[in-house]
């Protein structure tokens, strides 16, 4: 994200999402506004052997048009989430597939994922190892690689430009968006489908439980009683295009992706640097890239996993970036409602941030019964129970702070008509 190469402003012309609140952006926004959590008892697999029993599984009916396509049945869940989110985002942007590499439309896909079709691969091995070879499907095994959701999007929509997958744990989606931003700015592509997809699977469910990183109840970011994260699943896709391109065809940008930044803690395999220095460096890089100061940011969509360590480090990072404003700047934590979407969390929180900017209000999280509203040690201005009207909000930052100390931040600004 080099300033000298910045040549074009980049609009978000469409968004699509699949989450625990439903298939589509409409149920997502409705649930977010209501502060309704999608974290419920798991239906997908037998969870009796696991330490915890909740997750925000994708709910509601699939798009009937997509499901009627004979290719649909052969896609993994993560691929279906990805294709459905991309279809919605393209329709919103007013772009019709195939997005083949024509002279006037060079399109690419930038995607994040942590586990691809791992859920299906687990099913394969479960059947195979129990001697049920007839119900063990090779296709379930073939879908496992993390690049498969992005590739599925490219195949479904005929994208023949660059198709790239980022897998950097929980910052994957945000880093994919940052890479797509660079590609649109530099003119490498005119249209980028950028986002991420992950489905719930036992590997990550067991892994995070083994690390004692999962709350037995729905996660409670920034609260004193917080005990860990909750799992979610789903996908989010943002269509990124040069602003002029969207205006030329009479479209209306939903928002501007103004900047992206990343930085590594170089500290620990899973734990964040408690000083928050790496997270702050990523946020400052994103602000520089956007040409904005911290004072110009109106709200924060926090990584806010609800683990004791993440939220404490994130508070320190907010203090570094916002100084005395750290406890005043309105903040939300989407994971309290959707759980943690791992490789696509940065993407769905980008969509959430765009929706909040566009609607001029910040979505709430449910207040906890008893105890202080937020941890007195981390006195963030968390929006509780009711949406916070922010009709004049012009810019927002969304953070993704991953295992391995991989920190990423995205800055969006509201489309003001110029």
């Amino acid at each position, binding site marked *: 994200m080099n300033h000298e190469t910045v040549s074009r402003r980049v609009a978000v012309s469409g968004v699509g999402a699949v989450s625990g609140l439903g298939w589509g952006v409409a149920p997502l926004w409705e649930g977010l506004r209501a502060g309704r959590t999608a974290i419920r008892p798991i239906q997908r697999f037998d969870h009796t052997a696991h330490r915890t029993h909740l997750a925000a599984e994708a709910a509601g009916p699939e798009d009937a048009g997509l499901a009627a396509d004979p290719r649909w049945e052969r896609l993994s869940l993560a691929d279906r989430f990805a294709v459905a989110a991309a279809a919605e985002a393209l329709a919103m942007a007013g772009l019709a597939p195939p997005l083949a590499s024509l002279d006037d439309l060079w399109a690419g896909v930038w995607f994040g994922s942590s586990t691809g079709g791992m859920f299906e691969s687990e099913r394969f091995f479960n059947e195979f190892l129990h001697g049920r070879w*007839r119900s063990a499907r090779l296709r379930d095994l073939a879908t496992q690689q993390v690049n498969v959701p992005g590739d599925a999007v490219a195949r479904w929509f005929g994208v023949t430009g660059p198709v790239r997958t980022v897998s950097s744990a929980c910052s994957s989606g945000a880093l994919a968006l940052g890479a797509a931003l660079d590609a649109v700015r530099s003119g490498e592509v005119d249209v980028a489908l950028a986002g991420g997809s992950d489905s719930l699977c036992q590997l990550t469910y067991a892994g995070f439980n083994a690390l004692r990183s999962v709350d037995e109840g729905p996660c409670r970011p920034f609260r004193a009683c917080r005990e860990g994260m909750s799992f979610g699943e789903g996908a989010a896709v943002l269509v990124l295009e040069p602003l002029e391109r969207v205006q030329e065809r009479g479209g209306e940008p939903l928002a501007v992706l103004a900047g992206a930044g990343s930085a590594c803690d170089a500290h620990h395999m899973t734990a964040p640097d408690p000083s928050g220095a790496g997270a702050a460096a990523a946020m400052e890089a994103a602000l520089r890239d956007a040409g904005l100061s911290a004072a110009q940011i109106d709200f924060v969509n926090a990584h806010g996993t609800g683990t004791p360590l993440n939220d404490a480090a994130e508070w320190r990072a907010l203090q570094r970036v916002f100084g005395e404003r750290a406890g005043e700047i309105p903040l939300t934590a989407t994971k309290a409602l959707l759980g943690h979407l791992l490789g696509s969390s940065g993407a769905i929180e980008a969509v959430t941030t765009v929706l909040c900017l566009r609607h001029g209000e910040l979505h709430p999280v449910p207040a906890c019964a008893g105890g202080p509203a937020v941890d007195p040690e981390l006195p963030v201005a968390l929006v509780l129970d009711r949406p916070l009207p922010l009709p004049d909000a012009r810019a927002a930052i969304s953070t993704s702070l991953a295992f391995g100390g991989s920190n990423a931040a995205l800055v969006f600004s509201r489309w003001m008509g110029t």
Partner: protein
Amino acid sequence: MSEAPAVPSRIKRLIVESLHLEGMKPEMIEDEAPLFGEGLGLDSVDALELVVALEKEFGIKIKSQELGREVFSSVSTLSEFIETRT
């Protein structure tokens, strides 16, 4: 005691079951219809899946891709191949 089903019906049942073809019944597959591309619209992963299933069911071996392409063109070519080998 009922007679064992003929090879073509066993193949059709295997196609539907092993490839999890939703909404498809074995008797809907025509003996001469191409399995890949236009006909049933199967792809290369389906082909692999079917090779494994047929090898297990009939104890045959498909040793090369060339042979596979020939043998797998339709239910009739498959059943001919199986009947000469079992």
